[in-house]
């Protein structure tokens, strides 16, 4: 049976649409997801005790969220659904899983990676102080736990999520002190025309900004965070404009993020080729428009292979499922494929404009001094990295990791590698593309040694 088993990793919009399409064509699908309930990060469902109306939780996207949740419930009876299960290692044909504190494995013939995204924080003076949260973390606190990260919050960073979370916080009754976007207003205006490719999405973004302004919340452009005020916890934030002029805002929490980062470690472990995306300043697994990776058995959908957002993820998921089915001889319906492809082209055009409008700011704008923490897991500061880069002539991010331990800790570089790449590139006077990316190593997330207590040596073994 496992000869034809298709593994779908991730039960967000991309993974669910892929699984739906595959199941409808009679395929044998195992759906693996870290969460208890379907929805992914964007449509995350709170535990039953904290349930609230969809409109409260998901705002303008309530309808999509409900449809995705319903799809998750419907699919649960039609496929092998592994909830609360993480993939911590991947080898061709086999995934290593962690569920309920125990390791397990799953053999597959083909795999759809719909692994989603996480925040892309940048380091600044004090960014590891209690009271500083990522945008996604702040949103999870609100959606999942029904609480806010602070009573007076500054939102600083860039990207659509910055405005969305600020809006959600204000709606939830928190005081949003200010929204600081590192992108200059001119950049957003310049790319607004391209965003009309998806007028609905553009309108939604404009609505949030308009709403925030209408409620007296200052939205400032071209502002980067410079320094957190407060020793034990956040008491304020010093920010700087493009002209270098600084301002101070008193607050008790900061939510920050500079766009999102694809969770692409499984694709890396499975040997997929990666390509540098200069607009988004990041490495993504290479794929064709239908979602085929460079490895024949591996298919990619959604934010895990480049940020496209939830709506695009749904299109992606269905499209990639058809590509996979086509490989196994199932004819794809030409009209539906044409519709999907046309919608994806529009969506990607919109996304490109978004990426350009909310670009990762140049490192110089953070004005990092040597004492700023760069890798919080291993407690490596900016100065140590600059020193090592100069002393050993480092130009490669993996070499930097080997010589300084940056990215070697619990998070395996998920949180610090963007900052580290920027500091390395700046110090070594090379481009971000040249420094490369941190190679994925197992486990993707920490595995307790106790997870092996009941493990069957035969099932977990490759060879003695």
């Amino acid at each position, binding site marked *: 049976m496992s000869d034809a088993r298709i593994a779908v990793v991730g039960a967000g919009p991309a993974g669910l649409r892929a699984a739906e399409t595959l199941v409808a064509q009679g395929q044998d699908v195992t759906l693996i997801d870290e969460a208890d309930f379907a929805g992914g990060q964007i449509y995350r469902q709170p535990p039953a005790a904290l349930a609230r109306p969809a409109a409260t939780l998901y705002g303008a996207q309530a309808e999509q969220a409900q449809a995705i949740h319903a799809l998750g419930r419907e699919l649960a009876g039609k496929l092998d659904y592994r909830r609360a299960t993480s993939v911590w*290692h991947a*080898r061709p044909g086999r995934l*290593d899983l962690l569920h309920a504190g125990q*390791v397990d*494995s799953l053999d597959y013939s083909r795999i759809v990676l719909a692994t989603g995204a996480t925040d892309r924080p940048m380091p600044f003076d004090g960014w590891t102080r209690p009271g500083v949260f990522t945008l996604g973390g702040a949103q999870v606190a609100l959606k999942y736990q029904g609480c806010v990260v602070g009573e007076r919050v500054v939102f600083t960073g860039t990207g659509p999520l910055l405005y969305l979370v600020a809006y959600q916080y204000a709606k939830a009754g928190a005081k949003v002190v200010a929204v600081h976007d590192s992108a200059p207003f001119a950049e957003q205006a310049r790319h607004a025309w391209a965003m009309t490719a998806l007028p609905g999405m553009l309108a939604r973004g404009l609505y949030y900004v308009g709403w925030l302004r209408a409620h007296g919340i200052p939205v400032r452009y071209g502002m980067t965070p410079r320094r957190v005020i407060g020793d034990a916890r956040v008491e304020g934030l010093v920010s700087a404009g493009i002209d270098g002029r600084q301002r101070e805002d008193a607050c008790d929490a900061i939510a920050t993020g500079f766009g999102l980062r694809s969770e692409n470690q499984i694709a890396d472990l499975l*040997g997929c080729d990666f390509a540098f995306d200069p607009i988004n300043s990041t490495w993504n697994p290479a794929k064709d428009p239908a979602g085929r990776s460079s490895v024949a058995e591996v298919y990619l959908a959604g934010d895990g292979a480049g940020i496209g957002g939830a709506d695009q993820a749904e299109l992606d998921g269905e499209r990639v499922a058809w590509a996979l089915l086509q490989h196994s001889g199932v004819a794809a319906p030409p009209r539906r494929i044409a519709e999907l492809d046309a919608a994806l082209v529009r969506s990607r055009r919109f996304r490109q404009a978004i990426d350009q409008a909310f670009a990762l700011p140049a490192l110089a704008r953070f004005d990092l001094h040597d004492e700023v923490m760069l890798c919080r897991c*291993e407690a490596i500061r900016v100065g140590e990295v600059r020193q090592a880069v100069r002393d*050993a002539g480092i130009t*490669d991010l993996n*070499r930097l990791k*080997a*010589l300084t331990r940056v990215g*070697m*800790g*619990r998070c*395996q570089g998920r949180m610090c590698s963007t900052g580290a790449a920027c500091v390395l590139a700046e110090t070594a006077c090379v481009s971000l593309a040249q420094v490369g990316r941190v190679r994925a*190593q*197992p*486990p993707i997330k*920490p*595995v*307790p*040694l*106790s*997870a*092996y*207590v009941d*493990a069957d*040596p035969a099932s*977990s*073994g*490759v*060879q*003695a």
Partner: protein
Amino acid sequence: MNEIHTEVAIVGAGLIGGSAALALARAGVSVTLIERGVAGACASGVNFGGVRRQGRAPDQLTLAARAHEIWPHLRELIGIDGEYVRSGHMKLARTQGDLVKLAAYRQKVEGFGLDLEIVEGAEFRRRFPCFGAEVIGGSLCPEDGQANPRLVAPAFALAAERAGARLLQQCNLICFSHEGDAFVLKSADGRVIRASVLVNAAGAWGARIATAFGDEVPMRIKHPTMAVTEPLPPITSVSIGIEGGGFYARQVARGNVVMGGGFGEAVGEDVCRPGGAAMAALGRNAPAILPGLAHASIIRYWSGIEGYFDDKNPVLGHSTRQPGLIHAFGFSGAGFQISPAVGEVVADLARGRTSPLIDAAVFSPARFS
């Protein structure tokens, strides 16, 4: 135009090649150190990091004794201390039979200065409360220790460069030959290196170079599986091995416990990954031997590509076929501690001398013919 002339060319800028290059450069010899990737990034840089004499056959102990003198002076030699500490090395026993073997080893190596102490019973529990019930004692070598291979391995090559060696990184050699009175090495990117003496310090790839010059050696490639935990409170000060093998561990100053046991698998020719069975075995063994690990999480697994001989000795000495060719590879998972001394051996051989540190016959490739 792209031709480099050098007295000694060393292939492989791992620990062996790096320390040989350093010894030669310090002796004023023209030396070129050639590395396919970056210095010290293969097995030399990703090994366990045990700096241990205990467990070695007497054949290696003169070499190990010389290395033992060098390790505390690493800073003067390569500019960093490499996180070297003489933490002690404890080889554990699970049975009375193990203890008998450890005692026999102690007797066998008397006179090499290891100062082994067999600890068992109540005294073992009192002095080493970190060990689980299935461990009943052990043999302590108080001056053995540990260091960080990630830092030490590249530092040797970089120190050699500072001392005057030419270091060629990202230089993938595709053609090895001997023409007239010189070795001629050609790289994929068109560089040509001519040398009077060639040192084969290519680790797991060493047998391939040996074969190119007619030396056939029965080396096997293996991939040890290693793991590291998140930082933990102090559990063990001594570095740990176990009689019969299969588990080793050490805790670094930051608190992470580095451990290993079992082997991984090759993925194509030059890539490897930790083994599923080995990871599972580590999961079962580690908390049984060190109960302090019961609630620890592994944050990283890894492996390296190493060359092994059945007699656990490297090939270290002159080629049996090609004059001027010196082999130094196949350290069988135990090259880290002795590498600074191996560099001195190679430097002696490359200058036409014999080395007082080794019995040439024991390490010669001729032992296989």
